[in-house]
């Protein structure tokens, strides 16, 4: 019988670097199923359903446009402020929703964790792709806005490059989700901390303003934030804005991948006892 060639050994686990990526691959269909579950469950029994995905960043954009564009009069690099803002809000909203749902994913799935074995990493990771669908939907609004403002946008080949900047965003969101969800299993304090950290995070990322608003000597600090590179990359690809520094952006992206790798190692470590603790 073909099923006989698999063998499982249960014993106390030691060591740090067994990421079990092959197992993650074997369970890829679970990732896909969970991704759809996240998506469908979220808006079941709500009147306008999936429209909330688009509505949330749009409403946020309207509020911030009035607050920062009209009242505070923040500069926006010669692009209508709402467009400038929305192009930054898109990757940020992706990042923030992924982290929020990813952090709680292990607790939300505790019923599954204590009753079935599967690579637990799939739970936080499934939200990476769920929010990606949200992002794709919200993107259509941006294109609509660009036509509406008839701004002299560059509808050029550059636009096709924006998904490239999603890669570090996914890596960072994934890495932080792994770290935070693993810690949240033992210390629920994380749930109170995360919304607060995200609020600060949004203001140390040039979402509502541009990097050159800061004095030049401090800009590098902002640029090391991987999300700065992502937001600037989005504006570069979609709106044709210049980037404040390619080199330091690369360093920021490197940091994102480092967080992902350490997140995986840490998560695998915590995974061993998660069913006993949760």
């Amino acid at each position: 019988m073909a099923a006989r060639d698999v063998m499982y050994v249960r014993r106390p686990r030691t060591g740090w670097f067994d990421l079990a990526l092959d197992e993650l691959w074997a369970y890829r269909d679970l990732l896909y199923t969970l991704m759809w579950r996240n998506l469908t469950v979220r808006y079941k029994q709500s009147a306008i359903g999936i429209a909330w995905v688009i509505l949330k960043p749009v409403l946020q954009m309207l509020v911030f446009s009035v607050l920062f564009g009209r009242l505070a009069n923040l500069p926006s690099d010669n692009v209508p402020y709402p467009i400038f803002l929305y192009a930054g809000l898109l990757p940020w909203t992706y990042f923030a929703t992924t982290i929020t749902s990813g952090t709680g994913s292990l607790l939300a799935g505790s019923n599954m964790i204590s009753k079935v074995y599967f690579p637990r990493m799939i739970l936080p990771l499934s939200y990476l792709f769920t929010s990606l669908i949200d992002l794709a939907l919200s993107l259509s609004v941006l294109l609509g806005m660009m036509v509406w403002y008839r701004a002299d946008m560059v509808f050029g080949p550059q636009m096709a490059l924006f998904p490239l900047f999603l890669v570090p965003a996914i890596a960072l969101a994934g890495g932080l989700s792994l770290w935070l969800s693993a810690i949240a299993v033992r210390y629920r304090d994380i749930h109170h901390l995360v919304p607060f950290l995200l609020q600060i995070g949004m203001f140390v990322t040039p979402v509502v303003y541009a990097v050159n608003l800061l004095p030049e000597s401090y800009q590098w600090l902002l640029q090391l934030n991987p999300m700065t590179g992502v937001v600037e990359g989005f504006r570069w690809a979609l709106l044709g804005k210049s980037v404040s520094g390619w080199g330091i952006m690369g360093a920021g992206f490197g940091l994102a991948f480092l967080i992902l790798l350490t997140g995986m190692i840490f998560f695998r470590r915590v995974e061993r006892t998660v069913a006993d603790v949760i």
Partner: protein
Amino acid sequence: MSTPVIEVAQLGKTFQLGEIHRDWTRRAADRLRGRRSPPAPTLQALREVSFTVPQGEVFGIIGANGAGKSTLLKILAGITDPTTGKATLRGRIASLLEVGTGFHPELTGRENVFLNGTLLGLRRHEIVEEYDRIVEFAGLETFMDTPVKRYSSGMQVRLAFAVAAHLRPAILLIDEVLAVGDVTFQRKCLGAMKEVAGGGRTVLFVSHNMAAVSSLCQRALMLRQGQVAAIGPTDEVIQTYIHSTEEQQTRDALGFVLLPERKIPRPPEPGLICAARVVSAVGQPAASVRTGDSLRVDVRVAGLDRFPAAVVGLTVRSVFDQKVFHFNSAMAGGFRAAKRHPHEIVRLEVADVPLMSGAYSVDVLVFEPGVRLLDRVDGALPLDVIDSDIYGFGYRGEAREGLIAVRGACAIAPSPESP
């Protein structure tokens, strides 16, 4: 097939007790003050458990609550790691550790089949192939587009079992799933499990249902306080299990078994029944009676005089937890005008015990007929029925053949030749 499918060697599991974050802060505080923290309290749930299961066997695991059965199954399923030892499982594993494990209440039955299937490690196309058979087995054709939150618990088990049974796992781990679901479905599950085992697959079955264990399993393991207490042919292990529960009972000088414990749900007057004993036909406290003899049960009660209408009764159950018969004081005409006292002994006498030889247990209960239950102790007394020559021809009947002892006649007559 020489290599066993499941090999468990010296498996142990220790749990840390107490609240974890408290522990962490206290430890940090102690360290600051330069003191050594006392070690965290621990619980050893499993201790040096070893056994092997060959391919195609249905292996039962029994034991009292908290004996470590579920922990053992969780380790084998990979849900939690052992602290010591090693277990090797050869082949794909499916586990049914509780009702509707991977079910999401908001999703429909169909969506949940896919969620459940992929959760157990299946690819989507494999589920598509089996989908119709799964739905048919569960008997839920018309409910597949209904959210699972509208299912009854019985329907959820049916769906969960249907998915697991159709995964064609080499090893199936089952924990108490039969506790829910109606009799028809239980029978269907047992059939499916037999079929699964017949196909060369191995089943590990945890249950409190001794009837199911004895009819399904060739061999069984009994756990007591995390250790292997008995292992071997199922019927022998079940006997050990039944006798081990008796050891925990304390008797007083008159042979009364003291009954301070009540199982949940807690009855309204838990102090009424104090102790009980079985008295043999010759008037001695005993643990056994012979088939056809009279059975006397004495129940020591306190404060029963406060409930003049109360009825005291006993229910005899088989090993399989079936109620075999019930007898109470109202059936015998009640206590009539007897003078009542705060402390009393109620004697219930059953004439001609109609039971085949085997192990039984006696529940003792006090109730106001048609009003409410006052107190009840399940499994208060063990009762061994020993065979006697009730037929007069030397035949020894056993509970395995049937629980009730009946007498009758037989004859033989010539038949017209069959065509």
